[in-house]
């Protein structure tokens, strides 16, 4: 279920199959136990144009394991058995297109997913996808960028359900030292147009940043920082990610209290 009641509301991204599916399951479980409200299950794709080096490397590792959409669905089913946390698929378009929109929506529904975000599917081309997803009452989340015009934000808001994903700054995924003011401006522009919750992602890796984002958005997405923690702690991925998220939440709460 997509809910952002807990504060800070954290959305955790993992690349499924990095370094293998069993570890992804353990890491996702650790994220849930550490209080993440939504898990984004990343589908590895050969050409991740929206991703920086950290997720590119994770994608390579996952593809070497032969991870496909089918495995991601299996992982979702396992996670759904243990938790009612929000579960969404995060994918590039081609694997979904190849799978087929109807089959994809059916599989999302059957495996307990709440929805999906297709990075490189523009709202203008999303009709067939939206139809199938709506039939199964699945959330369709789209990305809004700081450079999106108001007219485009309206279309994005119209096509989005569950929440709108505001991209914190122009660029690809990956940690940045500072959060730009762009994110705050974008969230307020979206709020003027849409009643949906707004999550902010791209570049968030510290508790301080989570606190800053939580002061104006409904949730903060942490992706590359989790993936990097996995990369740097072979053999103890899940416990390291748990520790990282707990720390992130603790620092964020501390900042929010000030």
């Amino acid at each position: 279920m997509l809910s952002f009641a807990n504060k800070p509301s954290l959305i955790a991204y993992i690349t499924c199959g990095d370094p293998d599916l069993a570890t992804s399951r353990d890491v996702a479980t650790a994220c849930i136990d550490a209080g993440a409200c939504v898990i984004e299950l990343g589908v590895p794709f050969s050409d991740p144009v929206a991703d920086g080096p950290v997720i590119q490397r994770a994608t390579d590792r996952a593809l070497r394991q032969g991870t496909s959409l089918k495995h991601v669905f299996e992982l979702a089913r396992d996670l759904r058995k243990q938790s009612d946390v929000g579960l969404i698929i995060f994918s590039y378009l081609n694997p979904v297109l190849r799978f087929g929109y109807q089959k994809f929506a059916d599989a999302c529904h059957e495996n307990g997913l709440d929805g999906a975000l297709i990075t490189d599917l523009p709202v203008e081309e999303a009709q067939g996808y939206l139809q199938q997803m709506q039939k199964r009452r699945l959330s369709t989340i789209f990305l809004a960028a700081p450079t999106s015009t108001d007219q485009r934000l309206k279309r994005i808001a119209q096509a989005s359900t569950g929440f709108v994903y505001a991209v914190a700054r122009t660029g690809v995924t990956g940690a940045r030292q500072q959060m730009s003011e762009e994110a705050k401006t974008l969230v307020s522009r979206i709020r003027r147009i849409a009643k949906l919750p707004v999550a902010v992602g791209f570049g968030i890796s510290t508790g301080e940043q989570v606190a800053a984002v939580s002061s104006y958005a409904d949730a903060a997405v942490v992706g590359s920082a989790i993936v990097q923690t996995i990369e740097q702690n072979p053999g103890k991925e899940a416990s390291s990610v748990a520790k990282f998220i707990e720390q992130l939440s603790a620092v964020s709460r501390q900042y929010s209290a000030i």
Partner: protein
Amino acid sequence: MGKHRVIAETGAGQHGVATATVCALFGFECVVYMGTEDMRRQELNVFRMRLLGAEVRGVESGSRTLKDAINEAMRDWVTNVRTTHYMLGSVLGAHPYPIMVRDFHRVIGREARAQVLKAEGKLPSAIIACVGGGSNAIGIFHEFLKDRKVQLIGVEAGGRSGKLGDHAARFHGGSPGVLQGTFSYVLQDKNGQIATTHSVSAGLDYPSIGPEHAWLKDQGRAEYVSAGDVEALEATTMLARTEGIIPALESAHAVAEVIKRAPRMKKSDIVVVNVSGRGDKDIGIMRENLRVE
């Protein structure tokens, strides 16, 4: 547009050199992305770009060729879009790039049509061009689309074999998919992962094809065939020795198709072949692969 920085990707290096030239003339900052495999095999063009003042950034991901260079250029573009214009080198990428690039290349067809009418007094029977992304081909085809009697033939890279990963013949092994913002025929596996490709020519070594070519193929207006590495190299030698023209290895694929087809044609038939690039940049590869006595 108020942008002072230009980026581009390049496979064979021709588009990179063109971009670097324009940037030198107008005083723009210029960054060209190029797969490191392509930098190795198109060394001369790398030097030309650097001589013109461009920064050539090597791309190490994937098969280190054109597709990977486009990925990296797109990452740069979304990051620096406020100050940077992306000059995409083929009829690829998101709308309106395929249309823009086609319109810029239409000059080839306009010129060819005028010249053939002047020289021969009639339209050609066939036009043959190589197809990587497909900009030179769409450029020459477009002006003849309404002349239904003019056969339009695109030649893809057949590489070293028909096995997935060994060629770049999207119409002979590819299926509909989306890559880099374009819905077209794509070489991919059963899970929708983009396949690696191979061709002796860097400019044809790409797993998708301009969407207008997909449309022309589905309409039946154009026909698409392929020529392998060896055929292209042989065609290079023949064109050099009969016409005194050393073609780029990309264009040599089109020449190979002319050689195959010509014996079946009438003496009065006219074939226009688009020799889209010259072979200077490929002399190293030709030396490695051709025994010239």
